[in-house]
């Protein structure tokens, strides 16, 4: 047990070691980019350096976790709990996967942007602040740091009008959403006199704020702002175009890490500061989850382009994650962490394969373009099939176990209706995941050389293999991850008392 005094420089520095190290590393990468940016070898080396920085930050996170660091007194700046560490690690893994997948992609697409990796690291710092911020200020600044970096990453490919459109659209709507969020924070400050989550939680009861209009308006605006970032229906309009236009590894990063961090912040705000007023936001999240699942899955059915289909699929998955949040319980938080890791792996995998298949314009990879991939590239097709089945929630893959625990959390907290919607919409989602598998294995190649352009480079191939293996291994042997997720959810024990705290059934039950 390591007590850290967050009011003193040294304690604060140790509590924020993962973020600080990563920031310094990003600055060093920027300096490196200033001198070495002429050749493609330098870009590759920057990629490896970025990976080292992510590993260093992950090591610091694991050190904090292992040392059982706890704040002396209230932690009003940054949380020292396992929820933060778990989300940090997921975000770091997603960033590392994005780096690994972009090394060869940037080469192939002739994108020479020396600052790429530094921006990616800065975005990751923003995400880690979102995962750990105990103050609405820190959360907002983390969100902006993440968003500003990702706006630029989305618009990297300056030769492509679609990329520029994606960046601009993302920027404008993101700024719009930030304004909502900031206004919400201002009203919450007006109502409670603080921006610190734990103090807000303590003020609500004694000050009799349960139905105070200022609190209600602030909370509503906050939910709208986060709704945009996690792409929940009806705030999802930007998602398909932005995901479609951005370079594919960046899209994977956006669909996983950005969403994970915004979700983590939303969960922390709701469970830590507003657990007492669950009656206010519970129904809102219920409807958001239901509408997001239904609309995301139904619209995905109509998509022919694989990238757009995956964009709508990620919207649908936001609905599943919201379902875990409605429960307002430790079980919900654990199910969320558990599902988040698998969602990150399978979505990254799907986008990685798309990046390999599409050459110079993966915008236009239609489902039918994958016809016969099973014959031409059996391993690649197998990887895609595993990702699709896992996204669908097929038994034997990690996606199934993840969905299972979300269902358990939702029914355990008394939301059988939402669980039913989850099951029904998951069945609907077979209507767009399975055609991809069918096209790969059951349709002949369009012509002899249909997949001749698909080359699987070494690094991306190895990364993909690891991801797919993880999906299969965790699908049948989830215990270790489950334990970690459960440990992560312990962050919310003391406050999440309004809902029945339903522990997860013993690991390996299904």
């Amino acid at each position, binding site marked *: 047990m390591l007590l850290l005094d967050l009011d003193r420089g040294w304690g604060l520095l140790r509590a924020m070691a993962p973020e600080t190290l990563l920031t310094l590393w990003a600055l060093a990468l920027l300096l490196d980019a200033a001198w070495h940016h002429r050749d493609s070898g330098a870009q590759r080396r920057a990629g490896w350096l970025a990976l080292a920085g992510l590993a260093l930050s992950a090591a610091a996170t694991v050190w904090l976790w292992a040392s059982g660091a706890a704040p002396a007194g209230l932690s009003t700046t940054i949380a020292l709990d396992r929820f933060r560490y778990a989300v940090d690690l997921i975000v770091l893994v997603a960033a590392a996967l994005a780096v690994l997948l972009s090394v060869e992609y940037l080469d192939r697409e002739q994108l020479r*942007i020396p600052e790429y990796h530094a921006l990616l690291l800065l975005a990751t710092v923003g995400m880690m602040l979102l995962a750990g911020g105990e103050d609405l200020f*820190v959360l907002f600044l983390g969100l902006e740091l993440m968003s500003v*970096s990702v706006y630029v990453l989305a618009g990297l490919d300056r030769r492509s009008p679609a990329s520029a459109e994606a960046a601009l659209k993302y920027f404008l709507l993101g700024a719009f959403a930030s304004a909502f969020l900031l206004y919400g924070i201002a009203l919450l400050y*007006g109502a409670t*006199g603080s921006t610190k989550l734990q103090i807000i939680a303590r003020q609500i009861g004694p*000050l009799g704020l349960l139905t105070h209009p200022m609190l209600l*308006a602030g909370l509503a605006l906050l939910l709208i702002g986060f709704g945009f970032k996690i792409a929940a229906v009806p705030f999802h309009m930007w998602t398909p175009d932005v995901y479609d236009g951005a370079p594919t590894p960046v899209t994977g990063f956006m669909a996983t890490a950005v969403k994970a961090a915004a979700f983590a912040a939303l969960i922390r705000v709701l469970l830590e500061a507003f657990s007492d007023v669950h009656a206010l936001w519970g129904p809102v999240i219920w409807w958001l989850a239901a509408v997001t699942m239904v609309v995301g899955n139904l619209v995905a059915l109509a998509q022919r382009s694989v990238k757009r289909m995956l964009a709508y699929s990620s919207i649908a998955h936001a609905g599943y994650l919201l379902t875990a949040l409605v429960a307002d319980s430790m079980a919900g938080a654990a199910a969320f962490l558990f599902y988040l890791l698998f969602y990150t792996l399978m979505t990254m995998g799907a986008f990685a394969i798309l990046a390999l298949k599409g050459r110079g314009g993966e915008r236009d990879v239609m489902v039918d373009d994958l016809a016969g991939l099973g014959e031409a590239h059996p391993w690649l097709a197998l990887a895609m099939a595993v990702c699709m089945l896992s996204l669908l929630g097929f038994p034997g893959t990690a996606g199934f176990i993840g969905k299972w625990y979300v269902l358990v959390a939702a029914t355990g907290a008394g939301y059988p209706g939402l669980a039913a919607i989850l099951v029904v919409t998951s069945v609907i989602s077979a209507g767009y995941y399975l055609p991809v598998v069918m096209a790969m294995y059951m349709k002949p190649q369009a012509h002899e050389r249909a997949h001749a352009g698909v080359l699987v480079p070494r690094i991306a191939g190895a990364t993909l293999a690891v991801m797919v293996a993880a999906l299969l291994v965790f699908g049948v042997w989830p215990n270790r991850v489950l334990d970690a997720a459960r440990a992560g959810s312990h962050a919310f024990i003391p406050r999440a008392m309004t809902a029945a705290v339903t522990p997860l059934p013993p690991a390996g039950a299904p």
Partner: protein
Amino acid sequence: MTLVAFWTFAAVAIASAVLCITRRSPVASALWLVNTLFSLAAIYVLLDAPFIAAIQVLVYAGAIMVLFLFVIMLLNLGRTAPGDIKGPWGRAVAVAAGLVLVFELVALWLAAPPGELELPAGTVAGTVAARGAVQAVARPLFQGYLVPFEVTSVLLLAAIVGAVVLAKRRL
């Protein structure tokens, strides 16, 4: 006396803000905005926050407005541009948005924050007198809000790097 000063500056601020958004010429709008910012600075003085007022004049009314005017000149926006609100639909939406804001203002007025949160009169002035205006701002900034302060600098750096990456002609 304070009340008279407050209402005067408030009226000037609101009138200049209205003029700022109704003028056709961007330069005129920018100049009316300067007026609004100056009036706000005066109101900060009335709130016992002279340091914030000075910063408001230096940064907002000074630096940022110069930047605005530069951009207007660079983009050659000196001519009058067509209005943003077009057609009956646009007008209806604008009126509706305005009404929502008015409604919200009234609702928030009626739902004043709980009395426990209100500082006793003269607290801010007391702090300023005891510690000086700069220290009254600097202490929370570099102690309680150290992390947000530092993250802001990282955020600005990311924005600068991003702007350069997107705007650089030759990479």
